């Protein structure tokens, strides 16, 4: 699943209003831009949501994508989060079958989890579920390591990211608290 094209992480601040997510994803669809992952949540201001999208340049330069996004009336700000200057995290839940024929492979699977320093969050008779957080590359490696066992389900949150250091978007200073 390792992708050849360089990916970009966009942090998109939007007004927290109905239909805004549709406008953003609809724009990606209409202009044939790719969405590798997408995560949405509120911010420090309840009137503002943050959409984090990982995309690539296969269809258009990243500047074109950000300029098109900025045209949406409900989009307040678009930031490209450079991986060197920001922290990127994703959470993944992996359910693994621990029954192999008559044998249980539970100890081996737990061993892999320990090796990666990730948590086991659910244990059942024939399966266990592992929770892992990290950069996409670490999660990829974990999935690879679990491939010899039977992976029943994978659930990924999509990447979220934040800039390093004091570099922030001050929503209230930029837009005025009452204007949001």
């Amino acid at each position, binding site marked *: 699943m390792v992708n050849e094209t360089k990916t970009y992480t966009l942090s998109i601040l939007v007004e927290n209003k109905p239909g805004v997510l549709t406008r953003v994803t609809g724009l990606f669809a209409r202009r044939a831009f790719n969405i590798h992952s997408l995560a949405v949540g509120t911010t420090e201001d309840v009137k503002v949501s943050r959409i984090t999208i990982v995309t690539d340049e296969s269809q258009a330069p990243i500047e*074109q994508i950000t300029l098109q996004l900025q045209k*949406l*009336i409900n989009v307040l700000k678009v930031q490209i989060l450079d991986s060197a200057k920001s922290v990127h995290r994703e959470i993944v839940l992996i359910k693994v079958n621990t029954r192999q024929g008559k044998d249980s492979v539970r100890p081996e699977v737990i061993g892999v989890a320990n090796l990666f320093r990730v948590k086991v969050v659910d244990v059942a008779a024939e399966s266990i579920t592992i929770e892992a957080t990290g950069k996409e590359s670490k999660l990829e490696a974990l999935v690879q390591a679990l491939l010899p066992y039977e992976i029943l389900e994978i659930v990924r949150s999509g990447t979220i990211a934040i800039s390093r250091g004091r570099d922030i978007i001050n929503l209230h200073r930029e837009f005025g608290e009452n204007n949001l």
Partner: protein
Amino acid sequence: MLRVGKGDKLVKDSNSDYLDGSHILVRTLEDLGVDTVFGLPGGAILTVYDALENSTKFRHILVRHEQGAGHAASGYAISSGKPGVVMVTSGPAATNLVTAIADANMDSVPLVVITGQVATNLIGTDAFQEADIVGITLPVVKHSFLITESSDISSRISAAFHIATTGRPGVVLVDITKTAMTSYAHYNFNQKFELPGFNPKQQPEHQCLQAAIELIINSSRPVILAGGGTVRAKASENLLKFAKLIHAPVVTTLQARGVIPDSDMHSLGMVGMHGTIASAAAVQKCDLLIALGARFSDRVTGKINEFAAYAKVIHADIDPAEIGKNRQVDAPLFGDLNETLNLLIESLTAEKYTAQDRSNWWKYLENLQIEYPLYLDNEHAEESARNGMGALSPQSVIQKVGQIAKKYDENAIFVSGVGQHQMWASQFLGHEKPHNWVQSAGLGTMGYAIPAALGAKAARSNNAVWVIDGDGCFQMTNQELATSRLTGLPIKIMLINNGTLGMPRQWQTLLFNKHYSQTDLHDGPDGWSKEIVYGDGEEKGGAPNSGIPNFVKLAESYDCLAIRVTRLEEVEDAIEKAAKENERPVVIEFVVAKDALVFPMVPAGKSNNSIMYTPTVQPLLDDGNIGNRIEGEE
């Protein structure tokens, strides 16, 4: 004062400020200075129609089809520079508008479209005449609102007008639920609206301007590409000033015809698929392309990586996303075009700039203009006449219309449908002023012309509105002739009847071995079209076709002045009659040659270098001016 309204509800009269949403909507439109609304009522919006009174400050024009309301608003907006307003009911009425919305948004026409919606509590229940019009139109609007409370109506409508007209113009859809229309709120105009994410930039950056000026000073073969943005920005005066100052030729897109007078020496005419040879040469051989409010559409560029291949590019546009979208740019100038031109002119003047000697460049282009004038294609007309078919050359007819129309009114408005006749109208009418050329460029919507003309007439009732329409287009929207007749908005339709869907037929002629699949508008079971000879009584000699419809009788049924013209010697007289008719709409049917072709032509997807003057002549391929060099240059 209270009066008893429908349903025995107490309705405050409109002088009080406690009003139902329907009255709030009407009051808001009045207070925003709206003078004309195009629409058609229905269940979900009937309360608003009930709120319209004789004293209402705007005029409502009742169309016959909602698509017509949309195009009429667009014609109104293009010819007046003011936003067009549409009002229709929910469901099918709203979906009938989709084409007109997409059309206007593509051509950056400011519209505010108001649709009724089912009651708030019925949304999502598949209620009668419920359609998610906000969802349906999402990809083809600039923005949209769903209003569920009457207290939001005034501010959101104000915001809609602001968004539609600020920055790059576009369509804003406002969907209002029946609940919002019927519940009460205090009305006060000037409600504030917050649009924190919407701050279009008005002025280009200083250093980009400097870079642009540098490029201009160092260019020996500049060309200005004027797009629709120059019209929307009302920048035609500055454009001409600028062209004179830097002594550069100007080519225009289809959309921008008239922004520089065709008769001005700087104008090389239209560029693109059916543009002039001189325009194609100018963009292909220039060393500097100054694109103003143009979006590098495929119809203009041809094969994009061979477009203006040797040129540096200055691109000025109000929409930052247009810059660099299709073509790399050396000097991007974001901002209002008129303002940008002002700044360029000021800076160049301040630097005491005088245009360098560009006589080689001009000589090259002028020679092409002389050698390859517009192509009248009389041959096909003559051949057609010999065969007892439509004898008129559509190009000559349209040229004549242009001359006579401007003789009577130099500010006459020309509206066109989509097809061959549109290209001929662009080429042959003689466009001298901006805002007088109304047509569907980006979407290319057949049927645009008649309703759009109606809107243009509503905006500028003192000017004559001339429509160049095709027999195919006419049959898509001619129902608005009723609106035209009844509302006292007479338009003059010059119907270019070639009996065919001419533009696709032209492609079949040139690219599909004359396999005329489904483009003949008179096809029927075998022999059908040959049985009936078109023309009534003495007036034989028209094209042998089915005679369906009989355009003259159809037009007469709408009480239009209707004339069929089949012979060259009748052309002028008929157009004169049309010019003099000021009460009723006019439909003049010109029976023209079916095989007439639009030339020059760059086949879709091919380089502009391969432009064909006629099917066998490709002047830019073998003119000896290889690459970026032109004769007389080192």
